[in-house]
């Protein structure tokens, strides 16, 4: 029983934490990977709630395909949320 509660709490922290990080992260690539983590957490939630079908779908579509499409989009656009971040990053690279 106690283990179940601990697992549940860890899952909640993982999912909600990943969601918050996905929103605040400056680098969109991190944000997207974090979105994939949410799906992973959700998939485990579905498993706990006795919904293996949904868990499998979320794992296949949410974790794999959505993340991949996001990553491809980022590759075709930009990985910085703000233009200013991009400039900073270029400057940093120059200084190194």
């Amino acid at each position: 029983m106690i283990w179940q509660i601990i697992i549940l709490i860890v899952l909640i922290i993982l999912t909600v934490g990943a969601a918050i990080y996905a929103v605040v992260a400056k680098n969109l690539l991190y944000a997207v990977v974090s979105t994939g983590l949410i799906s992973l957490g959700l998939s485990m939630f579905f498993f706990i709630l006795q919904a293996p079908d949904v868990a499998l779908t979320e794992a296949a579509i949410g974790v794999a395909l959505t993340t991949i499409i996001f990553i491809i989009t980022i590759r075709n656009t930009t990985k910085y949320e703000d233009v200013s971040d991009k400039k900073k990053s270029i400057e940093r690279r120059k200084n190194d």
Partner: protein
Amino acid sequence: MDQLLTISFYGTAIALIAVGLYAVLAKKNLLKIVIGLSIIDGGLHLLFVAIGYVKGGTAPIFSPEITSNDVMVDPVPQALVLTAIVIGFAVTAVALSLVIRLYRHHNTASIDQIKNLKW
């Protein structure tokens, strides 16, 4: 204990919806907005499955060992969520293709700078 479980499942779902809403309403980056939409979607799906859960129930799959349906969770929300997940993916994919096209056209992904139309 029951209260705790209620809060933990419903609460997680609502927390996800709230975080996603924040991303959609407050963020300027198109990709962040799409991420927000998919987070809200996830929260809604969790809410849906949680409503179908029955305490002590098993997954709604019959096997030679499990033949009676007394202790099964409600399968309908699960079937509906399957549909909803696929639809959510389709919408996300279309939204992302629009992001790519907007980026090509305007060379930016921030809605502050994409303002040919009124927002």
